[in-house]
């Protein structure tokens, strides 16, 4: 009975979404307040019904209702309850429902937290979000109904969740990633609404900034979680494979990063408006593209749950419609915008423009590397693959260039920066960075140009950020007062930039100084990896709730002392008889030690992978810093203040740290 209720709730929410996409929009165009007033209740109703559908599906999983096809395919009565819960989004239909739940959740959040927006604007934003919802709700109802029944032949037990997905990482990775993907829909809706009513002003930029930042922060965490999960669960110690599915999440992140910075310029200085709008559209289109790539089954991966051509076609049509409609709107409305602001060639505006050029180039690059093989395949021109070397070769220079630019840009000022002053400012941070990065190189032993460039960029960003913080916090009333005076959005930026420095440092060090050895070992053997000795003690059997495992024991020694005892496993799952490797890792802030058991070679000999991974935690730590920076920035006073007090023009050096004002100066 319940599943039908869930389906009914989905259909009702589709109806509400259809109303939401029409009624408030018509109201805003004809100036009828009574129609606009429907926007918020409709948004709330949509969320409630999707929430109900999601609760019904969750209930079906927790109660092992195998008459529902989706539950039967993705769960099993032997599964622990928390994996039954996360299995809700372990397959195509459920993860799509989660996506829609997030979308309606964001829509509701916009409805709730936008009391001070003009009602015309909010009606249009919610209407656009309603349209996006209609697209995805149609998709789920028509092609991927999670409530389809297997009647009358109800299976006795389910086919089980893919063992790869039975993991803590899967519980948290998709919700975070989807929060990010879907969050860009809000930035998109603001951009479209601004295009519709022709109000592309600083106020628009200020409204859409916090939403973009939050979405970006969630996406950063989601990507980091995916990488972490791949590292310990799937990848035998790899953390980024330039796999199309990973790239699909990186694309909106890159253009979203560009969007955040471009929005800052539009808010503070009123320039780059058309460009910002375009980026908002592109970022959301890339989120949709990511969904298409991952969900349509065109890719070979753990994420490609099903390859149903109907689904691919539907998503492609949705993607094409969104892009064409928004670009047509853009073409008609964007040129209306005029720029009346001036800035010099070394101004902060130009540095942020360069940042955008680099980030967009990186986006294009990743897009080409990801899509080119698919396009060739589609046109029947042969099957190719583009592997890691392509991305490493092209992405690294852009990352380094972005890092170097970031350090310089930190000191730049709006409108105009004096070249001599800037050069003098940079001298000490530069000297310090050369010193520190040389020391790091000596510490790790072994110089390669790329390792140096990567470490130098990371150190350079960090030094410049701290130097700037030190400069800005100098105050006659003392350092503490000076530090307190800085705005939260400034500290958000500091954290975000430190985060990218940490991630770059981690990526460079682990790629250049990590050690990986595959060896054949029998119990009693000792293998050497760097400064560490791995003693293979023995291997035995162990039973888990729904698997049996070969359970290895290793002692890791350094300088004659035992520093860790690791127990990697080879699991055999009872249902489906699939085999899974569970690595064991001794994690540390400065290094990970990793052991995984491969296949059995002979009676007592095993293939073993041993790894030393310096600074690998920094990769994900940096992402947490970035996300924390994002959340800190949106808690800034100026997003909460009802009336902006005394607007100040943004001509002083402190304008970038100014808590409010500087917006709305130029039309």
């Amino acid at each position: 009975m319940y599943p039908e209720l869930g389906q009914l709730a989905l259909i009702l929410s589709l109806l509400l979404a259809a109303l939401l996409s029409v009624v408030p929009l018509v109201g805003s165009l004809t100036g009828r307040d009574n129609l606009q007033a429907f926007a918020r209740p409709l948004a709330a109703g949509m969320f409630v019904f999707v929430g109900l559908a999601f609760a019904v599906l969750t209930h079906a999983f927790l109660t092992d209702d195998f008459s529902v096809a989706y539950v039967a395919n993705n769960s099993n009565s032997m599964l622990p309850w928390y994996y039954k819960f996360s299995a809700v989004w372990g397959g195509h239909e459920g993860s799509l429902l989660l996506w829609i739940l997030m979308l309606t959740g964001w829509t509701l959040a916009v409805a709730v937290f936008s009391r001070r927006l003009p009602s015309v604007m909010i009606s249009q934003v919610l209407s656009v979000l309603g349209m996006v919802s209609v697209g995805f709700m149609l998709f789920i109802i028509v092609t991927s109904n999670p409530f389809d029944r297997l009647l009358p032949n109800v299976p006795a037990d389910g086919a089980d969740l893919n063992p790869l997905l039975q993991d803590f990482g899967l519980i948290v990775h998709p919700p975070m990633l989807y929060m990010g993907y879907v969050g860009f829909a809000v930035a998109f809706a603001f951009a479209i609404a601004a295009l519709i009513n022709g109000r592309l002003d600083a106020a628009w930029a200020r409204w859409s900034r916090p939403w973009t930042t939050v979405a970006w922060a969630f996406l950063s965490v989601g990507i980091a979680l995916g990488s972490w999960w791949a590292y310990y669960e799937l990848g035998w110690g790899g953390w980024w494979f330039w796999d199309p599915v990973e790239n699909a999440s990186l694309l909106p992140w890159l253009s979203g990063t560009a969007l955040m910075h471009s929005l800052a310029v539009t808010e503070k200085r009123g320039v780059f408006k058309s460009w910002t709008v375009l980026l908002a559209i592109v970022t959301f289109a890339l989120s949709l593209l990511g969904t298409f790539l991952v969900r349509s089954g065109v890719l070979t991966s753990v994420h490609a749950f099903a390859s149903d051509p109907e689904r691919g076609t539907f998503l492609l049509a949705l993607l094409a419609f969104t892009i064409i409609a928004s670009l047509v709107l853009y073409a008609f409305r964007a040129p209306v915008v005029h720029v009346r602001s001036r800035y010099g060639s070394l101004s902060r505006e130009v540095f942020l423009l360069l940042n955008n050029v680099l980030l967009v180039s990186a986006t294009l690059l990743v897009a080409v590397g990801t899509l080119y093989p698919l396009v060739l395949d589609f046109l029947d021109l042969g099957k190719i693959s583009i592997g890691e070397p392509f991305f490493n070769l092209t992405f690294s220079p852009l990352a380094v260039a972005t890092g170097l630019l970031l350090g310089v840009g930190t000191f730049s000022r709006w409108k105009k920066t004096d070249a001599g002053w800037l050069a003098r400012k940079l001298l000490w941070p530069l000297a310090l960075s050369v010193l520190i990065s040389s020391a790091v190189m000596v510490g790790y032993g072994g110089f390669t140009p790329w390792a140096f460039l990567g470490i130098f960029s990371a150190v350079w960003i960090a030094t410049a950020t701290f130097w700037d913080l030190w400069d800005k916090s100098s105050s006659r009333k003392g350092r503490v007062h000076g530090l307190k005076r800085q705005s939260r959005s400034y500290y958000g930026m500091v954290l975000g930039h430190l985060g990218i420095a940490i991630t770059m440092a981690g990526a460079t060090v682990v790629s250049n100084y990590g050690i990986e050895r595959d060896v054949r070992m029998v119990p009693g053997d000792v293998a050497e990896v760097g400064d560490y000795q791995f003693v293979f003690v023995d291997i035995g059997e162990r039973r888990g709730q729904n698997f049996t495992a070969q359970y290895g024991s290793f002692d890791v020694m350094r300088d004659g002392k035992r520093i860790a005892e690791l127990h990697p496993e080879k699991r055999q799952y009872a249902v489906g008889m699939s085999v899974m490797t569970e690595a064991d890792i001794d994690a540390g802030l400065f290094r990970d030690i990793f052991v995984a058991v491969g296949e059995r070679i002979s009676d007592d000999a095993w293939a073993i992978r041993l790894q030393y991974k310096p600074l690998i935690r920094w990769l994900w730590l940096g992402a947490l810093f970035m996300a924390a920076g994002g959340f800190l920035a949106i808690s800034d006073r100026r997003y909460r203040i009802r009336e902006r007090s005394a607007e100040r023009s943004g001509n002083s050096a402190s304008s970038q740290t100014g808590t409010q004002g500087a917006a709305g100066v130029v039309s």
Partner: protein
Amino acid sequence: MHPIRKKRLTIVLFLLAGLSIAVALTTYALRQNINLFYDPSQITAGEAPLDVRIRAGGMVEEGSVKRDSESLKVEFLVTDFNASVPVEYVGILPDLFAEGQGIVAMGKLNSEGRFVADQILAKHDENYMPPEVADALEKASLTGEQSMPGSAQPATN
């Protein structure tokens, strides 16, 4: 020149410079790093280039996996049921590698006609077959009349 026009020109030049660098890097890198896929029939017919990194895929032939007991070296035959290619690999095989399963190998073909792999990819779960392998098997079953008795029929997903 009008200052606004001048500004626009600088912006456009910046964008063009960035784009052309990106395009140049991309085409250069692409030319070096494209890996073409060949099925066992193409490789035995001599269509695949020697000493170039390519991908090869098919089913692991039943009973063909030979393991060296002293190292991590493995040898096996990859087949599309028309032709087979010997593959050599040193390292740890993926969990889902097994005889009778579809795999894709990355590596180089040497002059003796052996495929020296540096990476072996197996499917992620038991229902899934790499699309290249599915295609190769389908092609082979269309061209070759014989069907091996008792062998698994290539199921497309």
